[in-house]
């Protein structure tokens, strides 16, 4: 029994690589079917290319370590703790950070370092055209508004995960160069804390609503920026 075109399109859309003999015959049963099959094959090539992310350097080698060190878990997050122990200093001690534990990160510091290493550097070099409206629209989804003074210096803005849900990753164009800010609307930070990792320094600060991590080459230059952020990121009216 021959296949009608509608059924053929459905099968083609579900599985363009289908090797069923009847289906393959249908692919060549008329010019219309043939063209549809050709288009589907071309689309599939694009799709396969789009999802074929490059193999991360060292992934397999890291996996193989698992079988060579049976007693120790090689989880990256645990390795990260050792790396942090070696490179991270806490400038302000005593009162710490309060956060709701997230299954993905053991602490806000863990999150901060993990996040920055993920895309912190690559976003610093990105050149977006961000309007004040873009900034306001993105922050509004978190029930936050930004003052024009802050919105005007935002060079990049995107949603990002935080230890407690959705937040915002921003690059601010300051007089001393681009500075990264992670805005964390639902993460509580008590007292200003400074830490350093890789070649950057970061401060974690409580804001009028939520908290933020400010990251750049020199934390000593953050005081005026911290004040600007504190005064500029405010709950939308009716959400305070």
């Amino acid at each position: 029994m021959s296949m009608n075109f509608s059924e053929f399109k459905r099968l083609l859309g579900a599985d363009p690589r289908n090797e069923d003999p009847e289906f393959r015959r249908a692919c060549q049963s008329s010019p219309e079917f043939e063209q549809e099959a050709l288009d589907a094959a071309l689309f599939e090539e694009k799709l396969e290319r789009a999802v074929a992310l490059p193999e991360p350097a060292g992934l397999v080698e890291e996996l193989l370590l698992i079988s060579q060190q049976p007693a120790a878990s090689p989880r990256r997050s645990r390795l990260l703790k050792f790396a942090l122990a070696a490179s991270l200093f806490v400038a302000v001690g005593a009162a710490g950070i309060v956060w709701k534990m997230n299954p993905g990160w053991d602490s806000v510091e863990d999150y901060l370092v993990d996040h920055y290493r993920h895309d912190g550097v690559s976003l610093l070099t990105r050149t977006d055209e961000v309007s004040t409206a873009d900034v306001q629209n993105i922050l509004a989804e978190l029930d936050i508004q930004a003052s024009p003074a802050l919105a005007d210096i935002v060079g990049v803005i995107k949603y990002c995960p935080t230890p407690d849900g959705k937040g915002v990753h921003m690059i601010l164009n300051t007089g001393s160069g681009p500075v990264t800010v992670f805005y964390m609307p639902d993460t509580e930070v008590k007292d200003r804390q400074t830490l350093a990792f890789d070649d950057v320094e970061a401060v974690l600060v409580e804001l009028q609503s939520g908290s933020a991590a400010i990251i750049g080459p020199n934390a000593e230059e953050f005081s005026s920026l911290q004040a600007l952020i504190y005064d500029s990121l405010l709950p939308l009216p009716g959400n305070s």
Partner: protein
Amino acid sequence: MNTEAGRQATFTQLAQTYGTDLYRYAMWICGNDALAKDLVQETFLRAWKALDKLKDNKAVKSWLITILRREYARTFERKVPKFTDVDSVVVPEDSELEPEEQTEMRLLRQGIMKLAPKYREPLLMQVVLGYSCQEISEALDVSKSAVMTQLFRAREQLKSQLRKDGVTGNVHELF
């Protein structure tokens, strides 16, 4: 798998054969490079611990995917990360493409990230992991007919999204 050397050899083969595919799959479902690597690490860690329970080598891929999906659900069942910047991971691979093709790739990747999970996951199982509709049906515990509908709709949505994102005209002309 009676000897330690045998276990290691089996594990090495698994890591070399499936490590990258699992990373790609994890990357597409969680949208975060570092977390995808963590998921793959955790998957293989669990696989290493349970390697002696593996009786059917033909089922190893499904076994690994099942572990990874459970780990993903366990880790992110409450808060799913919202990273969607896969372009930062794939740009170097695309440098050989013409600018128009790079744009198509970017739009296509954005479209994949915008797909609802019920469409995205079976599509990735098929395209990234090479699963058949029957294998997807078993992995996701839904009927084969439902899987085929989801796959069809996933592709239709991607084509539609590409048109909406600025590529006009017949989608046939685009590809």
